[in-house]
Every structure is written in C-alpha cells, then in structure tokens.
C-alpha cells in the first residue's frame, strides 16, 4: 500500500527546504516523517504561478490525511453514487439532473448521509476547481459535453445512462484520490443544497484576477521551458504513445461492435428461414424447428454480448483516451511553472532594481516548481497503477464475458444434438456412435 505524500516544509521567507525526491510507493510511517504537510485547500490557480504555498496543518486535517492512506485499500469511508437522472424544464432551458448520494463516516462531514441533485455543469465546475487547486495532479476525465451527432441526442436514454455511469466513476475516482477527496470543493459538491452551491460557486477569485492568471499562463507558455528534466520528457513521450494506443483500442472496439451488430442483423433472418422451411416438411419439421430455436437463442446471446462491450469495455477505453488529454494538460502546466521559474531566475540575474522582491518571487517560484514536480511524480505513479488496474480488469472482464457467450451458445447446440441423438435411438434409426 503506497501512500501519497509530498514531503515538504514551506513557509514564505524560508529559502532552505527539505524536499526529498518522489517517495510515493513508500509506506507511510507515522513515527518517522515529522514534517508531513497537508495540501492547502483554498489555493486557486490557473497555471500555478499564483500558487499559495501557505499550508494549513491543523492536527485534524493531518490525521485525516493519514487515515486516507491507511484506509485507501482496506476500508473506504466514503461511498458516492450517481443515479436517478431526471429532466428539468424551465423557461430558458431543459436539462438533466442526477441524484448524488453520499454515505460517509468522515468527521469533517456534518452528517453521515447526503442526497443532492447535480447537473453536468456542476460536475464541470468541480473538475475545474480541482484542476485549479492542483495544477499538476491528474483529475479523472468527465464524459464529454455533447455527442457529436447533435443537441437532440442529449436526452436520448442511452446517452443519459452512459453519462450517468461516467459521472459515477468520476466522483468515485475523486473520492478515492488521497488529495482530492479532502477537497473542500468536493465536500461542498456532495453536500450543499442547490442555493448554497450557487452562492459558493460565486466565491473564489474574481474575474479580473482570473484574467491575470490566464495572461501569465499564456506568457509562460510562449516562453517555453528550457531545461525540462528527463523524466518529464519521458512522461510526455509515453503519454503521446499511450494516447495513440488507447484511442486505437477505442476505435477497434467500436468497430467490433459495429461488425457484431451487422452480423446480428443477418443472423436474425436465419432462424425464421429454418422455421419457414419446417412448415413444408414432415419428418424434418421437428429438427428444423429446433435449429430455428437454436439460432434464435444464439442471436439473443450475441445481442447480450454486444451490449456488454458497449456498456463495459468501451466506456473505460474512452475514459482513458480522455485521460491522455488531461495528462498532456498537466504536463503543460508543469512546464509553465518551470518556465516561470526560469524566467524569474533570468530576471534576477539581469535586472538591477527590486532585487529583494525578485529574490522573494524567485524563491516562491522555486518552491512552486518543486511542489509541482513532486506532486506530479507521485500522482503519475498513482495514475499508472490505477490505469493498469482499470484496464486489466476491463479486459479480463471482457474476456470472461466472451467465454460466457461461447459457453451459452455451446450449450444450446449441444442440447440440440442430444435431442437429435435420443430421437434417432428412440426411432431405431441409424446409430450415430
């Protein structure tokens, strides 16, 4: 069991920091690590350059942090479900809300059960907040905004169901994440009454300050990073390659589904044809009817199998394809933080005025960078582990269902064969053995 910790003690003005390299994978030992910090919850950044590095290390929150890591795999203390989509019609628009039920034993929640209704926009908001707060952590993707086909599709039953499942997975991934699950935004999302949520959303950095951050982000991006550490370059290369592979798999699987559906269309005509034939026959009527029945049963199984692929494998592949966009964004943001640091380093070297403030800024930038790098490294390992588990279980599941499918069809035909042979022996006909 690996914990997720970034070991760093940072306070403004302190230029010496003890920041070990990535220690994810090491078991959290309560006795040894004294200077564990909990990530601040009210940082609001777009590119990390205004990252507030003041930590709130209340004992309570630290205890909670430990608790997450121990309980990560043994006891979940928060259960979130997304279900019950409902359509709402107002004068301006029609939209769907989903019921979000939370059951938890965590102490920072006022009660142990919550039920709220949320719409897609709210999920988008939550995701945005988490990304702002933790620019180099990896947030699980949300289902896409709209289907390419058109707006009408938004209210299609299958689409809503697919989206509901994806939203459910999204919230669960957040709940399982050691940092995100203790986010105040997350808590508000799960518990606030609609009016509360709206007013809470209105807080946060004003429009202008957001603009300022965006400008800084663009500037940083334009500058570009000069000395990217090798491991992040490797990460980027991996992400590129992985992105191609996963999107290929997504496409291949969709193609399989298409072909299966077309096969099913043709197969559906076979059974009735055998049945039709049986009407012209006497001796053969029975076996022909039986064959028709077998073919029809196999059709049902094939239909089931296609549905399985659609409901289980494709959404997972699709989500990981979306993940790669997130990963690329995270790597970009990290680069920007580094670019900012590099720019400030240069500025200090060249400019003469305001050296003290500049040195301060530089220190902050350096801290930010260290922080961002370690955060990313830890979360990267976590993400990879998750990815491996998710994809492995999706493929194992698919293989299992396919075995199941063939076993069912096998039974269908074997029972036909059996009935034919017992018939033959009963009638004293040709011996088949």
């Amino acid at each position, binding site marked *: 069991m690996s914990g997720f910790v970034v070991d760093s003690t940072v306070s403004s003005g302190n230029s010496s920091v003890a920041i070990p390299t990535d220690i994810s994978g090491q078991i959290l030992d309560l006795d040894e690590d004294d200077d564990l910090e909990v990530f601040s919850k009210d940082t609001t950044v777009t590119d990390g350059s205004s990252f507030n590095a003041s930590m709130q290390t209340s004992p309570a929150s630290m205890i909670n942090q430990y608790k997450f890591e121990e309980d990560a795999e043994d006891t979940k203390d928060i259960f979130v479900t997304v279900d019950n989509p409902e359509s709402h019609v107002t004068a301006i628009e029609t939209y769907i809300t989903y019921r979000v039920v939370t059951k938890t034993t965590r102490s920072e929640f006022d009660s142990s059960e919550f039920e709220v209704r949320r719409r897609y926009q709210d999920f988008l908001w939550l995701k945005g907040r988490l990304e702002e707060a933790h620019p180099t952590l990896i947030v699980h993707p949300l289902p896409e905004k709209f289907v390419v086909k058109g707006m009408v599709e938004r209210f299609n039953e299958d689409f809503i169901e697919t989206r509901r499942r994806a939203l459910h997975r999204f919230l669960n991934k957040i709940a399982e994440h050691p940092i995100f699950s203790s986010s105040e935004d997350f808590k508000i999302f799960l518990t606030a009454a609609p009016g509360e949520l709206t007013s809470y959303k209105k807080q946060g950095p004003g429009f202008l300050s957001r603009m300022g951050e965006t400008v800084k982000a663009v500037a940083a991006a334009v500058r570009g990073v000069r000395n990217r550490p090798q491991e992040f370059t490797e990460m980027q290369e991996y992400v590129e390659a992985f992105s191609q592979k996963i999107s290929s798999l997504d496409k291949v699987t969709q193609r399989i589904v298409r072909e299966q559906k077309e*096969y099913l269309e043709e197969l559906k005509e076979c059974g009735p044809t055998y049945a039709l034939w049986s009407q012209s026959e006497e001796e*053969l009527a029975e076996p022909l009817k039986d064959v028709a029945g077998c073919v029809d049963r196999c059709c049902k199984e094939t239909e089931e199998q296609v549905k399985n692929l659609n409901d289980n494998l494709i959404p997972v592949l699709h989500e990981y394809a979306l993940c790669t966009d997130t990963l690329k964004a995270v790597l970009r943001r990290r680069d920007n933080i580094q670019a900012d640091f590099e720019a400030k380093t240069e500025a200090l070297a060249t400019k003469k005025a305001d050296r003290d403030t500049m040195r301060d800024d530089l220190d902050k930038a350096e801290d930010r960078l260290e922080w961002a790098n370690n955060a990313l490294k830890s979360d990267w390992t976590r993400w990879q582990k998750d990815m491996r588990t998710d994809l*492995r279980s999706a493929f194992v599941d698919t293989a299992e269902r396919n075995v199941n499918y063939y076993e069912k069809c096998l039974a269908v*035909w074997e029972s036909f*064969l*059996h009935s034919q042979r017992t018939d033959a022996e009963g009638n004293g006909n040709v011996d*088949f053995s």
Partner: protein
Amino acid sequence: MADSGSEEIAVIGNTDLTPSESENNLKNTMVEKGTSLLKMMEISVAEAEKRTGKNAVNMQETYTVYLIETRPVDAASEGTNPVPDSLWRRYSEFELLRNYLLVTYPFSVVPPLPEKRAEFVWHKLSADNMDPDFVERRRVGLENFLLRVASHPDLSSDKIFYSFLTEENGWKETVFETGFQAKADSRLKALNATFRVKNPDKRFAEMKHYGDELQSVISQLLRVRARAADRLYGVYKVHGNYGRVFSEWSAIEKEMGDGLQSAGHHMDAYAASVDDILEEEEHYADQLKEYLFYADALRAVCRKHELTQYELEMAAQDLTSKKQQREELATGTIRTFSLKGMTSKLFGQETPEQREAKVKMLETQIEEGEELVKERNTECEEFVKSAWVDIERFKEQKDHDLREALISYAIMQISMCKKGIQVWNNAKECFSKM
C-alpha cells in the same frame, strides 16, 4: 454416449464428429443400402487437373478434368491394393451423362450435379471457376453425384453409366447413338401440358408444390447464410487489430508488457480461426445446395407426369370426338358444329359412297385411337407407379441426408464455440497478468 446420472443436459460423448466424418457416414449409408453396382466396385473422383486445348470454334481454352477411379470391391478387401482403373472426364461430359439419364429415366429423381458456377458466395470466397477451392468442392460434388447414381436402384444398372465410368474413348459417340436427344420433350410441349392438364394425380401436384417451396426456402437460407458468413468474417478479422495494438502498446509498458504481448497473440489466433470455420460451413452449404438442385429434379418428374397425363387426356379427347363424329354420320344428325356439316348443308349432301368412305376412315381412326388411349393409359399408370416409388425413396433419402446436414451444422457450431472458449480463456489469463 450420453452421460448418465447427471441432472443437467447430458454431455454427449462424441460431439467431435467432423463434417468429413459425417459425410463419410452418408457415403457408407449409400453403399450399405446400395445396389449391385456399388457392391461390385468402388468409385471415386480422385483428382482434378487443368488442361488446355482447342474448343469447337478452334479457340484456346482452359478447362478442368477430373480423374474417375474405379476399383473392384473384392480386390480391395483381399488386402491386395491393385492400381485402380481410371479415366479423365470433364464437367461437360458429366452434364451429358445426366441429360441422358434425365431423358431415359423420366420417372426417376435424377441426382443433381454440383453447380456449374459458384453462386451464393460470400465475398471472401472466390466465384472463379478456376479457383482451387471451388475446383476441390466441385470434385467432391462430382464424386457424390456418381455415388448417388451408383446407389440408385434403376440408374445404377444403366450401361451408358457403366461405360462412363470405364470407357474413356468413344463414350460420347455411344451416348449420342442412343438417340436420347430425340426422345427429349421440348420445353414448349412440357409447359403446354402443365397449363392444360385437367386431372393430374394429386400427389404429384403436391410434390411439385413441395419442390417449389423447397427450392425457394433453401435459396433463401443459402443467401442469408452467405451474408451472415461475410459479417462473421469481419467480426473475427477486426480482432486481429487488437493483436497489433496490444503488441505496440506492450512496447511502451514495463509491467503490463508481457501480459499484453501474449494476449495479442491470442487475438491474432482468434482472427485467424475464422478461415477454417467458414470453410467447414461451406461444406454445409454444399449439402444444402445438393437438395436445392434435387428440388429441380423432383419437379421434372412431376412435370413428366403432367405431360403423360395430358397426352392421355388428349388422346382420350380425340377418341371421344371421333366417336361422336361417327355417331353423327350414322344417324345423320349434326350435333356438333363442323365445317363439313356446313358445307354439306350449303352445297348439298354427299353421296352415299363418300359417306361410306368417311365412315370407314373414322372406324380405322377410332380403332387406332383406342389403341393409343390404351397405350397412353398404360404409360401413364406405369409412370405414376415407378415415379411414385422413386419419389418415396427420394423423400426418405432427403429426410435422412438433411437431418445429417443439420446435425453436422450443429457440430460445426459446437466446434466454433469450443475454439472461442479456448481462445478467450487464454486471453483472460494473459490479461490477468497485465
């Protein structure tokens, strides 16, 4: 055989009967129930070869010839394995043989030849007559044809058939010398009879109807099956892409690499397995096709009945009208309108001598007519008797063969499922090592 003591559906002992084994069962049945010919000699179409030569209009053509081997039965059972007698025949000679049999034994349901051109093909299967798979399937079909004829109670003792199997040279001339082509009924004549016959035997009318239905439903089945085969091919082959992508993906992963790589191999195996599966199914399609063409032969017998019945009716009708004419002449009354009657009214009666001559002619004609009716009646009766015997024989054969075909289809499906189970279980194991 079946499992005992189990509450679920009993496990059948031998579901691994391959289609070729079940085809063998068919052949053995033919031999067992077979005629004296098959008890005397073994017949097979052993090989196929391409030849080129000049055709009737002196142009180069490529064609396939088939090697017919015959071997006396007792020689083989004695343990010695003498070289079989053999000769080469091309498809057109088989056609000639069959046409001869059709004309000479109109009351028999003559076994059909395998199709001349590939039809009901799904796209991956070649429709080219020169394609080796097509040639191979045709070879099997031709052998089947010969065995069917050889096991037919009437056809097997035919001399032309025997010389087809044994006399390489001059066989064609011998066939033409029989003058069978002259005996063939013209299509027009047959069609005419079908429309005009008044009292065909009900059983034959039903059989003809059955033949129509059989042909229609088997055609439909073959079409649907071919389309489904096409689609199934697509499904399996796309899985090959998994193999490729898994392999590429495994290159960028550390722990997941091995599992992915080996899973990829199983996906490739899965994709490749469809070729064998569909080849076996083609065999099933051929069994259906045989009966598709048999339906035609069945209908031919029914049409022949209609023709003989019609000719009987015509003769009887003719006789009746002649008798009526005689009566009219004798009594002087004209009951029916006739040109002679009119002209005699207009131009005066004939002389007694003329009348005398006419009556005499009619008497002769009536005599002949009565003979003809008797003849045709016998013909008709005999035809109905023989044809119905063969139709009953055919029905039994059809029920047996098609049932076997359905069973072999089920066996194929079972084999396909077993392969699927194996591949996906293997894949599952590899995935769990990811």
